[in-house]
């Protein structure tokens, strides 16, 4: 039984939590606000918070000057493509490990996890070299494959934990009912696992979208996603806070929204089921 809490106590909690929450959120809020200011207002001394002339000018300039749409499109293709490929490879693998476990299943799962822990910098040059040799440098295909590979262990793990919650008897029932393995996966397993698959997809789009080692090192211009687009702002030219803010807001907005939907699944995905 939950105890009734006095309203006074609840009020103090609320004030404290909101204060801390807003403090943590403040850099994002400030970026969003600044993106609607003119460059002059953006660096005004003292800083203005809410009362300024709101303008969409920065968004227009950023669009025109840096071809934002191209970077956005690259991000969408790379994040979406790597997740889609990953799911395609991971669903059968996770099915196998969840429903036909063998003595080695646990070892294989842990080994897959260990590949995720490989520091990227340790294999930077070989990958770089392979990419040059295969003509994949600065290509969306190459980046999609790399991001798929680095996130594959997480996808398999998440799906595995979701599949394990589906009772094996239901799959056996399908088998008794005359379903082939393919039909069993398509008609029974997949529909039942849709919520799990959806949150796996969501989390992996976020991870791929924000990945900033391979995207920075394996792209130049053609295939560069938003991470690289933002990095190009690190060498400033004159007054640029407002435009930087507009660019940043555009880069994080889609994922911030997706992220809010997937926050419940985040813990499970990122701790490999170690914390529930």
């Amino acid at each position, binding site marked *: 039984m*939950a105890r009734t809490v006095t309203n006074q106590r609840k009020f103090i909690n609320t004030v*404290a939590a909101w204060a801390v929450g807003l403090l943590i959120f403040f850099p994002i809020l400030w970026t969003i606000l600044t993106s609607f200011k003119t460059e002059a207002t953006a660096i005004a001394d003292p800083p203005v918070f809410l009362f300024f002339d709101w303008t969409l000018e920065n968004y227009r300039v950023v669009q025109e000057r840096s071809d934002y749409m191209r970077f956005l499109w690259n991000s969408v293709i790379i994040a979406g493509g790597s997740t889609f490929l990953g799911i395609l490879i991971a669903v*059968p693998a996770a099915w196998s490990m969840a429903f036909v476990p063998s003595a080695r299943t646990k070892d294989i799962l842990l080994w897959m996890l260990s590949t995720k*822990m490989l520091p990227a910098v340790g294999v930077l040059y070989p990958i770089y070299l392979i990419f040059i040799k295969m003509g994949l440098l600065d290509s969306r295909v190459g980046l999609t494959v790399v991001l798929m590979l680095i996130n594959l262990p997480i996808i398999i793990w998440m799906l595995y934990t979701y599949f394990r919650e589906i009772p094996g008897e239901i799959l056996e029932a399908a088998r008794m009912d005359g379903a082939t393995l393919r039909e069993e996966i398509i008609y029974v397993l997949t529909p039942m696992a849709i919520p799990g698959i959806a949150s796996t997809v969501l989390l992996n789009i976020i991870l791929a979208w924000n990945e900033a080692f391979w995207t920075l090192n394996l792209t130049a211009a053609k295939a560069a996603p938003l991470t690289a687009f933002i990095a190009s702002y690190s060498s400033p030219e004159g007054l640029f806070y407002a435009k930087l803010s507009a660019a940043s807001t555009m880069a994080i907005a889609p994922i911030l929204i997706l992220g*809010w939907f997937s926050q419940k699944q985040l813990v499970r995905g990122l701790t490999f089921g170690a914390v529930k």
Partner: protein
Amino acid sequence: MATKASRSAARLMMAPAVILLLGWMLVPLCMTLYFSFKKYLPLRGGDLGWVGFENYVRFFSSSAFWPSVQATLVIVGGVLVITIVFGILLAILLDQPMWGQGIVRILVIAPFFVMPTVSALVWKNMFMDPVNGLFAHLWKFFDATPIEWLSQASMTSLVIIVSWQWLPFATLILLTAIQSLDSEQLEAAEMDGAPPLSRFGYITLPHLSRAITVVVLIQTIFLLSIFAEIFVTTQGSFGTKTLTYLIYQRVLESQNVGLGSAGGIFAVILANIIAIFLMRIVGKNLDA
């Protein structure tokens, strides 16, 4: 619980994932290992033959090695301490009854979804800039001299930026762990006469120990290889050259692949030592 047919189907369906990951792990790793024993300068003569352990000796004895270890330790240690201490406090706060809990949760989690390049740039320019940054305004308001954050307090700045990014992760996991604590345990302790602080120390904290370990291990692995934050802020200057960044510079900037590869192998070994501990915990959980 299976037949031969389903077992062979399972093996077949696992094959693509296993083969891909095996290739992804082994091929580049073997290449790195191979290069680490070579003098290999792609822009200055290419493959100049085997040199044994010379690359390793040079990597470890170079003047940049120890500072980079130190920088790595400061960042990893600093961020871990900050995110876990504040993470626990925040998790406890968020676990209390309040109005608008869902919204506060979202506010707290948000930084995790911000891409590293964005958060680094926003902090660098809009907060830590010595002229126009918000911190400079704040300092001036109190009649203090603004700090040139990224040069004078470069490590502190980086720790702040990275902590901001990872605090949501720690908070979220610790909050999940706190919520899984059986409230009857706490009530039993209360009936036994334990004051709030003892209840926290004897019940809540031990309950969290597992989650804390998981946070420490996972964050360590990710923090060891932070890159974008340094790349867009200091580019490794002002003593912020971590191991990862040092290796990156050796490989791609100075194109000394042999030397960089030796460092890469070192980084792989380091990460694996931590990974072993993490896998023990995860593995134990698999059996349960």
